[in-house]
């Protein structure tokens, strides 16, 4: 994983609550054995009409959404299916961070393991982000602060380990492999065997 220490980008706002991972990437796009190139499928049924033409009303299709790396979403973003294709698709589409008042457990876990920064903020700050689409933000992972162009600062929290892994670009599989001795001992010493 590439280290992520600071993100500087404009926001795009998708205020709908409970955006599930089926909406982020529909099941019909999961028939792949690769993780690459999934961005073209992100939010497909919202971005495109049934006849395949682009839906000009959808926020991601508006000219001002171009180049926005921070997605401000409604409460409970990423609920539903555990598909890691969802963060893979969002990253490939160009998103670097998601901001919401609540982010579903499995999605958040998957996102952070891939360097997509999933950030939960308080309701008041969230409302401000919803009301100010397109604002340029600086997200500092080290200090866990979001700073808007006008100086407005919002603190957020991240699990200490997840933050360390983002900043250092730590591969968690490597970390787990270093626990081999402890895992061996655990397997030998358990009182019952599965």
């Amino acid at each position, binding site marked *: 994983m590439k280290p992520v220490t600071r993100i500087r980008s404009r926001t795009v706002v998708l205020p709908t609550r409970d955006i*599930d991972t*089926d*909406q982020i990437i*529909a099941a019909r796009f999961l028939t792949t054995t690769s993780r690459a190139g999934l961005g073209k499928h992100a939010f497909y049924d919202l971005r495109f009409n049934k006849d395949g033409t682009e839906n000009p009303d959808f926020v991601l299709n508006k000219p001002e959404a171009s180049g926005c790396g921070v997605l401000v979403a409604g409460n*409970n973003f990423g609920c539903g299916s*555990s598909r890691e294709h969802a963060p893979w698709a969002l990253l490939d589409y160009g998103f670097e961070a998601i901001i919401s008042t609540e982010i579903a457990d*499995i999605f958040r876990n998957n996102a952070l393991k891939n360097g997509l920064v999933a950030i939960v903020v308080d309701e008041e700050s969230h409302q401000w982000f919803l009301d100010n689409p397109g604002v340029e933000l600086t997200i500092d992972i080290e200090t866990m602060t979001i700073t808007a162009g006008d100086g407005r600062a919002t603190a957020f929290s991240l699990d200490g*380990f997840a933050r360390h892994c983002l900043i250092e670009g730590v591969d968690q599989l490597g970390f787990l492999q270093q626990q081999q001795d*402890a895992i061996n001992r655990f397997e030998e010493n358990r009182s*019952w065997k599965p």
Partner: protein
Amino acid sequence: MSTPTTLFEKVWSDHVVVEETADTPAVFYIDLHIIHEVTTPQAFAVLRENKLRVRRPDLTLPTLDHSTPTTPVSTFKDLLVAGEGAAKQVQQMEQNCEEFGLDLLGYGSGRRGIVHVIGPELGATQPGKTIVCGDSHTSTHGAFGALAFGIGTTEVGHVLATQCLLQRKPKTLAINIEGQLPSGVSAKDVILAVIGEIGVDGGTGHVIEYRGDAITALDMEARMTICNMSIEAGARAGMIAPDETTFAYLEGRERSPKGADWDVAVERWRELRTDDGASFDKTVTINANELTPMVTFGTNPGMVVGVEDAVPESDDASFRKALDYMQVESGRPMTENAVDVVFVGSCTNGRISDIAEAARVLEGRKIADGVRMLVVPGSELVKAEAEARGLDKIIVAAGAEWREAGCSMCIGMNGDIAQPGQLTVSTSNRNFEGRQGVGARTVLASPATAAASAIAGRVADPRIYS
């Protein structure tokens, strides 16, 4: 005396390899890893890149379910019904299992089926185990007092390579279902009511323990239906303490302990319950006596209403958007809606008791003209048992299709989908936009409600048949 602990805490602490600290999560051991063709190819690729082996093939249970067609398969060409990508995934899974020494329960095994159906029916799912799978409905296995949850593909790779995960300890939520379920009200109605009560994010960060008289009165398949949809309330997992019902279900199954090992296991399993005086982070109580058959009206499983009740009103933009998508009106009951497709199956309701319940309602009746009904067994063993009981004949005589085992219409990636705008009454777990096909509208319900709706040609109350 030691501090009273919950069922979850007992299973959790039994699997901590390295304790968590402020800086690092716990290293957490996994007893059973179920894998399927859709969420594993990229994990096997990571193993290959790093020249790693699967640490415990004996604790890994591979099968094919998500992108497999539910029409008969004997050659590669038959797989193409689900599309070329899906067929290649199946082929890739067969190759990966071969290369990494895993015993795939695939075509020709007679044991293939939905990950969350085969684990329990083979007796691989057992009380006190930790169980994971790259599928959010892994919570199903919690019905046995296992701690079971869905993981992403990166984590599938972690478990394949190390048999462990990095985990922070979740919080606990007790859901007490007190009283007795009225006649004609099923486990599916209970869990839909629970999600309606606590919301689709009501369980986020928590492991649920379902408790109370109405839960202990349920058989194992009904308990699985309840735990299955824990994730639809945002919970990490759902658990039910094992009891005599659990032990009776497991005794004699293919992978259950045998002989003296069985007695030792049952003795250990009896300890797996929440101690008197143990505390939960949150508690919710629901009165079973007041529950009715439930159906969803919106685009998430928390948007739910009694089958005879009016769809509620709200000015909330997300709520209005959901009603627009579903083409339903506030103030009107769901029974006014015509049905195009009915689906009985999935890891929520694709077990033998679900098929039998649908067949009970269908027996001697015909589904309405213009309705397409698919009945899809959750596994090859469920299919064989249903056929041995003659249920397939009842289903076909009623005008429904009897299919091969798989995830089918629960997830639109295997060829089984509804057309844009069609309304499907489905015994699956998600009514998200597009879940059953682009523009398809889904009403979640129990097998009895689904079958009753197929007969009526509109959403229907199943209690006239009880």
